[in-house]
């Protein structure tokens, strides 16, 4: 009898957990909410941005503010959509947390070096691309590795970041290499420095940022994929998405986009600013 009650307890606990799970899964109230309307009422847009990526979005420890290309672009877009008094709120996200945070409504849009891929487009909706990155590799200066092809042999180890699609690309371009996925770029760079792998792979813009900070490391071989970054919004928020696209077009036409691009990428060695101008 005692055993039976114990099993019943365990069983009911599991059942409760399942109920909780299913109730979390269907957040119908959130998907019905019109984000654009809500943002206009509160006069704020909440953006999910990177806080660990030099040039795109990096936390400045002195001012306690996130700074970077994406931050400036998001601020400009917020002003374009909500008017001069519109306020942009920035929530730091990682490659792992950004989609769950968007889905549960903590952020309105993701602008966090997120490549538009067909798989992701099934989960979220993307705007037009606002930055055309490409995947490249970062190695120690003087390394025998000159391009991604040199990594395609057994025994070579490539470092990447969990949740980024660059890891999957390595399986395509250097199938024999082993990939270690670390939790963020800072950690991946530390692992590269301590020799846990021969190369670090991700999008070139991020790698250029790292080589600016760490002169002993350099980007080699050019980019071998096309990685268009897009702004992600929840499914069913077409009005908000169209408005973002429109704001992006306006900023491209009135020169704000180029100004922001030049501010962050104008002086980066090896980065072709003229080619990226819109």
């Amino acid at each position, binding site marked *: 009898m005692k055993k039976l009650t114990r099993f019943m307890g365990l069983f009911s606990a599991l059942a409760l957990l399942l109920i909780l799970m299913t109730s979390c899964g269907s957040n119908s109230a959130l998907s019905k909410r019109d984000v654009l309307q809500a943002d206009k009422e509160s006069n704020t847009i909440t953006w999910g941005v990177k806080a660990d990526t030099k040039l795109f979005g990096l936390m400045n420890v002195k001012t306690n503010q996130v700074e970077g290309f994406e931050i400036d672009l998001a601020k400009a877009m917020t002003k374009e959509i909500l008017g001069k008094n519109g306020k942009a709120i920035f929530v730091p996200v990682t490659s792992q947390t950004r989609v769950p945070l968007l889905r549960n409504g903590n952020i309105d849009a993701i602008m966090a070096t997120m490549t538009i891929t067909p798989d992701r487009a099934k989960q979220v909706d993307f705007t037009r691309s606002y930055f055309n990155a490409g995947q490249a590799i970062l190695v120690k200066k003087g390394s025998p590795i000159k391009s991604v092809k040199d990594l395609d042999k057994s025994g070579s180890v490539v470092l990447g970041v*969990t949740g980024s699609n660059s890891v999957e690309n390595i399986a395509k371009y250097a199938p024999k290499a082993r990939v270690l996925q670390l939790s963020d770029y800072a950690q991946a760079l530390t692992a590269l420095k*301590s020799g846990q792998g021969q190369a670090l792979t991700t999008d070139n813009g991020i790698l250029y940022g790292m080589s600016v900070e760490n002169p002993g490391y350099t980007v080699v071989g050019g980019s071998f994929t096309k990685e268009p970054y897009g702004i992600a919004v929840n499914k069913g928020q077409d009005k908000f998405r169209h408005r973002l696209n429109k704001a992006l077009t306006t900023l491209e036409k009135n020169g704000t986009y180029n100004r922001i691009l030049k501010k962050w990428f104008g002086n980066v060695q090896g980065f072709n600013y003229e080619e990226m101008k819109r």
Partner: protein
Amino acid sequence: MIHIFATQWPLLLEGLGRTLLCSIIALFFSLIIGSLFAIFEIMPNKIMRVIGNIYVEVFRNIPLLVITMFFFVVIPLYVTKINGFTAGTIGLTIYTSAFIAETVRSGIQSVDPGQMEGAMSNGLTFWQSMRYVVLPQAFKIVIPPLGNQFINLVKNSSVLAFVAGFDLMYQGNMIANNTLQTMPTFFVVGILYLVITMPLSYYMRYLEKKLA
């Protein structure tokens, strides 16, 4: 949920295997190292006592993640190349051994001092009386808290995910990111951890009943 397991089982099983392997290695060595430092802590020799105390206090009071990152980043830089799995297992062993040392020490001290005196007055050396008289009684007392440490060890092995140790948590992170099915993936991962910890906790309970 079933879908996740059906499509991703090779990754999940590899993760389960790694977690199990890491746990077994860390459990074995941390029990030995922990018991050794527990004895150091109560030895009559003062230097040994100080060594034991320093070891326990240092590693008990540093977060596991910091110890592990040290072995992952610093050791390859200056000493020898070790991969994430090794670094994580070493970190886990050292961290857990400090807790086990404290647990075992409390067990040894709860054995009547007369037992030690009696053994030594019968001509046994310190180590002999420890090994044959005191420790068998001490372990009987500390089985329940020791079981806690073992279960914590299995769960703490998820630290391997941060140093690319290919364990269950690492694979879970990867699957969650590839499929974007975060909730079901971690539900499956949680169940797989239970697969290891539940039998362990029942075995410890069995031992407790059998030996008490």
